[in-house]
């Protein structure tokens, strides 16, 4: 049925691949880094923690150079339409490298991982593999590549979650993450297979052309969208695909929790934007009848449910990691608001919000790790009276939490402001969503502020005196994250402009 390709055809395929590899250098570089880290671990033996961490940070910083060089290249799709190089992808490449570096920094201070007896070699290698996978998630333009990239991220993440093998909570988190992850990626795959059946194409640009030209059965389409949303919603941690997140966030080693809550969520959003903006037809004018449910209506419900559920359930949490897990569900809801607007303003707001979320969430988790190193737990009660004993950390955590609430003068405020203004610019249609968003933000003020309240105004049951000392490096990282959160709260224009520039590729697809 299918003939073998001739020699000339094979030659042309090889030359296409060689041409495409020129646009793929950061990913190739990081894959090499992945292997170098494994080898380095083998060669240097057990006493290599500092060396491996330094090598990972240096390697990740090196990739910034290659990404920077891509900025002058034109937008192309290569590898037979599997992969794209564009502004949107480059923004997320910077984002994931930054989150990878922050993940290494948080790992370096974590006592739990420091005590881990069987070395850290695979940990850093897996971390880099996840960076590569997330970059691919943000840049793939083909269903196959999207699925493979997502699985690369998931498989690395399962292993990282269960990295503390002797710790029951870590193993339990890994099992839950695995079970939910495997099921939702299966559903995503089934959705992809239905899309392939409808269009006979796997490239998202061609899928959108076929769907626009030939039309589609709305019932099959809504089923497909639901299946794909299940896969992506799991990555984003949005209701009703959130069941894994509180347990996984609590059980996983804290640096991994921070990494999952920021980077893997952002990768889910990047893929959601690229897939739904490009591949699936949209717009309110097409669906006049209220019986038609399109993917935007589904997203609206998911977003409203995430904001309400995440913020309300967080009120009762006694464990700070678990509290931040519910807050991250709520933040997924806010981020979805920006996507629902379906215009460049909203997309730009999502990117700015993600950048803000990177700084403030990593900052919060960083301080939580430093405190857990001292107290040995993440319980809210153990935070009592800590404010006076660790002045810098207390102040920094307060700033990060204010930013997570979305109060000025922090970066989080700018992110929320841009999202809500993009939403309200669309008129009264989204008023109810904006109202839910603002009301739930008020709720979030309560549970976030419980932490500073415990730190500063309540006395510990077992009062101790004296300032708790932390390392110089940890102080510098905390202080710089805090300063950046405040700095971008005042001078956000460069990031906002860069985000706008990055979303320009969707110009033709958005209204």
């Amino acid at each position, binding site marked *: 049925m299918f003939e073998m390709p001739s020699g000339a055809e094979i030659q042309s395929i090889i030359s296409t691949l060689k041409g495409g590899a020129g646009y793929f250098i950061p990913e190739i570089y990081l894959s090499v880094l992945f292997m170098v880290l494994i080898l380095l671990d083998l060669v240097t033996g057990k006493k290599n923690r500092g060396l491996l961490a330094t090598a990972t940070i240096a390697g990740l910083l090196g990739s910034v150079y290659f990404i920077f060089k891509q900025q002058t290249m034109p937008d192309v799709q290569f590898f037979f339409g599997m992969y794209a190089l564009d502004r949107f992808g480059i923004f997320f490449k910077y984002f994931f490298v930054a989150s990878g570096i922050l993940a290494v920094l948080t790992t370096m201070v974590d006592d739990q991982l420091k005590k881990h007896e069987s070395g850290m070699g695979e940990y850093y290698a897996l971390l880099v593999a996840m960076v590569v996978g997330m970059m691919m998630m943000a840049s793939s333009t083909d269903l196959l590549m999207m699925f493979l990239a997502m699985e690369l991220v998931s498989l690395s993440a399962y292993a990282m979650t269960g990295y503390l093998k002797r710790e*029951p909570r870590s193993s339990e988190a890994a*099992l839950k993450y695995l079970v939910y992850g495997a099921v939702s990626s299966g559903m995503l795959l089934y959705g992809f297979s239905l899309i392939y*059946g409808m269009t006979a194409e796997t490239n998202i640009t061609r899928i959108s052309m076929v769907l626009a030209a030939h039309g589609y059965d709305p019932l099959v389409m809504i089923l497909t969208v639901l299946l794909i949303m299940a896969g992506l919603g799991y990555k984003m941690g949005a209701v009703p695909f959130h069941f894994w997140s509180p347990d996984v966030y609590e059980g996983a080693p804290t640096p991994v929790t921070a990494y999952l809550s920021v980077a893997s969520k952002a990768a889910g959003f990047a893929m959601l934007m690229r897939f739904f903006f490009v591949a699936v037809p949209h717009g309110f004018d097409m669906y006049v009848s209220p019986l038609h449910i399109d993917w935007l209506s589904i997203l609206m419900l998911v977003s409203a449910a995430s904001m309400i559920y995440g913020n309300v359930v967080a009120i009762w949490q006694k464990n700070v990691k678990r509290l931040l897990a519910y807050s991250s569900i709520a933040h997924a809801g806010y981020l979805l608001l920006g996507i629902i607007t379906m215009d460049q303003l909203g997309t730009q707001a999502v990117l700015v919000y993600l950048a803000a979320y990177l700084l403030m969430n990593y900052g919060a988790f960083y301080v939580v790790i430093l405190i857990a190193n001292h107290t040995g737990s993440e319980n809210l009660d153990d935070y009592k009276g800590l404010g006076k004993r660790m002045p810098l950390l207390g102040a920094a955590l307060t700033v990060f939490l204010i930013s997570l609430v979305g109060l000025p003068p922090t970066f989080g405020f700018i992110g929320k402001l841009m999202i809500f203004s993009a939403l309200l610019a669309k008129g009264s249609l989204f008023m109810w969503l904006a109202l839910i968003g603002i009301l739930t933000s008020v709720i979030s003020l309560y549970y976030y502020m419980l932490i500073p309240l415990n730190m500063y105004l309540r006395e510990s049951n077992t009062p101790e005196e004296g300032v708790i000392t932390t390392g110089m490096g940890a102080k510098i990282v905390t202080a710089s994250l805090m300063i950046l959160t405040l700095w971008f709260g005042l001078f956000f224009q460069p990031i906002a402009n860069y985000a706008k520039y990055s979303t320009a590729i969707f110009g033709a697809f958005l209204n």
Partner: protein
Amino acid sequence: MLTEQLLSIGVNHFLTISVILFGLGMFAVMTRKNAIVILMGVELILNAANINFLTFSKYNGGMEGVMFSLFVIVLAAAEAAIALAIVINIFKTFKTVDVSSVDTMKE
């Protein structure tokens, strides 16, 4: 006569099998308590998608679906390897692979 019957098997037959497999997989995932059986359910879901890909590939005339299903088979193997490693670790720690009893973290 026999060939006529065989030829009459169309895309609908394949899709029906695929949907049944998908349903059985989801059923196993939702109702079973044993981690291994849940993973078997996941394999059923992946293979249901594979049948879809191969069917569409056959009736659309392209090769993308065949390629897709090959990659899915490889990925399913990789996922099974990691999954079993985690399950073995769970068994060592908790002495059970029942997911309802591996539940130490509470609200």
